[in-house]
C-alpha cells in the first residue's frame, strides 16, 4: 500500500529532512519525491510505501499534521486509494 504526503508552505531549510526523518522513524519508505520552490513557497508531493509502517496509519497522519503545524506548513498524508478511486477505472 502507498500513501501520498503533500506539503505546502513557506520555504525553509530542512523541510525534506524533517519529513524524511519522520518517515524513517515509522518505517515508511519514500518511493518518489517531486518538489519545487516558487516565489519563496515550497510545495512537495511525496509517494511512500506504507506496507511496513510501525504505527497505525491514522496515527502517522496525525504525526504529519503536527509536524506541519510546528513548522508552519500544511502537511497531509493520505492513503493512495482515494487517488486511485478517482482517477483509475
Amino acid at each position, binding site marked *: 500500500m502507498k500513501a*501520498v504526503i503533500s506539503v505546502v508552505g513557506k520555504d525553509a531549510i530542512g523541510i525534506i529532512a524533517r519529513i524524511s526523518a519522520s518517515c524513517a522513524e515509522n518505517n515508511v519508505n519514500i518511493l518518489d519525491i517531486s518538489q519545487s520552490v516558487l516565489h519563496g513557497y515550497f510545495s512537495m508531493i511525496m509517494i511512500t510505501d506504507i506496507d511496513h509502517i510501525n504505527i497505525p496509519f491514522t496515527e502517522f497522519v496525525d504525526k504529519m499534521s503536527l509536524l506541519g503545524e510546528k513548522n508552519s506548513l500544511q502537511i497531509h498524508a493520505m492513503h493512495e*486509494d*482515494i487517488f486511485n478511486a478517482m482517477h483509475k477505472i
Partner: protein
Amino acid sequence: MLSHENILETLQMIREECLDIRTITMGISLFDCQSDDEKRLADKIYDKIMKNARDLVKTGNEIEKMYGIPIVNKRVSVTPIALVAGGVSPDGCVRIAKTLDRAAKDLGINFIGGYTALVQKGFNDSGRTLVSTIPQALAETERVCSSVNVASTKAGINMDAVARMGKIIKEAAFLTKDSGSIGCAKLVVFANAPEDNPFMAGAFHGIGEPETVINVGVSGPGVVASAIKKAGNCNLAELAELIKKTAFKITRMGQLVAQEASGRLGVPFGIVDLSLAPTPAVGDSVARILEHMGLEQCGCAGTTACLAMLNDAVKKGGVMASSSVGGLSGAFIPVSEDEGMIAAVRAGSLSLEKLEAMTAVCSVGLDMIAVPGDTSAEIISGIIADEISIGVVNTKTTAVRIIPAYGYDVGDTLNFGGLLGEAPVMPVNTKSPSVFINRGGHIPAPIHSLKN
C-alpha cells in the same frame, strides 16, 4: 504510479473546491422493537440504535483521516416510526421521538431521521396519531427529523394528508417560534419518498431495506462549478461531457468511502446518492454552477434548462462510478443552504414559482424556503399540493420543506446558522386555495399512457 497531475487535481478538489462526503447514514430496522408496552418499545428502540450504530462516528472519523477527505455528517435513519408504533398513544409517540433524540446525542450524530408516516393512500390510526404529534416532537427534540409521504405515482395524492400537513407545518412553526421556527426545517412532505435516502431531513429506513445498511451521500457543487469555469467558451454538449466526468470522480470518492465504511462496520453497503448538495459556504453552491453555465443570475430565463442538463449529466457520470445508486440522486436546490440561491432571492431574480418549475427537472423540491409567518395553512397546503403533483405526474420524488417563520415577513432573514444556513423570507401568492384544499379526499393516480 499515480501521476502528479491527478494527485494535484484531487488535492485541489478537497482543499479549494469544498469536495466532501456529505453524509454516511446508517439505516436501522426497528421492526423487531415492537411492544405492547410503550416504555419497553422506547427502550428497545434506544438499545437497538445504540448497539448497531455505536461505532458509526468513530469509523467515519477514521476513514476521514485515512483518506484525507472530510466526512461532514454521520447520521442514522430508522424504520418509519408510524410502522413500529401501532396502537401507541400520542404521548408514546413523543416519548419515542425523545428516545431517538437521546440516542442521537449519545452517538454524537447531529440528526436522526425516521419520525415518519407513509400515508399516500390514506391515514391508518398509527399514521394519524404520529402526524398529529410531529409539531410537539420537533419542538421537544433537537436532532430528530420527520417526514410524511402524502402521495405516490401509484396511489395518487392523499389530499386529506396535504390539508393536514399545512396545519402541522404551521403548528411546528409556532411551537418553535423562539428559534426561528426551526421545527419546520426538520420536516419534509414527500411524494414518491425514496426508502434509501441518506440525506436529512427526509431520511428513513424503508420497509424493503435490510436489517441495517450503509448509504452515502456525496457533495461537490464547488468542483463542478470550478470545472465549468475552467472550461471557458465551449458548447453545451462539451459542457455536459465535462460535468459527467466531474460527477464520475466525485461519485467514485463516495463509492470508496461507502465500501470502506460498510466493511469496517460489518454492515451491508446500500447505495451512493449522486446528489450535488450545496452548503451556505462560498464556493459550494448549485446556483453558482448554473451561473457559470451562462446565466446572469440563478432564476432568470434559461435556469430550468441549465438545471435539467446539469442534473442529467450528474446522473450519467455518477451511475458508472458506483455499483449501486439510489436515494434522491440529483442536484439539490435548498434556498437557505446555498449561497448563490440566497443571493438570487435577495436580488429578486429567484421566485417561489421559478423554484417550483426547477423542481420538475431536479431533485428534490421546494426546499428550505422561508415564507411569511402569517401565510395560512391552506396556502401552505396549496404549495404542497402543487409540488407533490409535479412528482406524482412525472414519476419522481418531490418534496416540500417550507418554513412559515412565525413573526417574520417578506424582507426579513431567518438565520439558522451551520448547514441549515439563512433564508430570506420570500413572498407568496396570497390568493386563497382554501375551497380546493378543504374539499379533502384523494386525487387519483395519474394515467401512464397518452403522455403529453
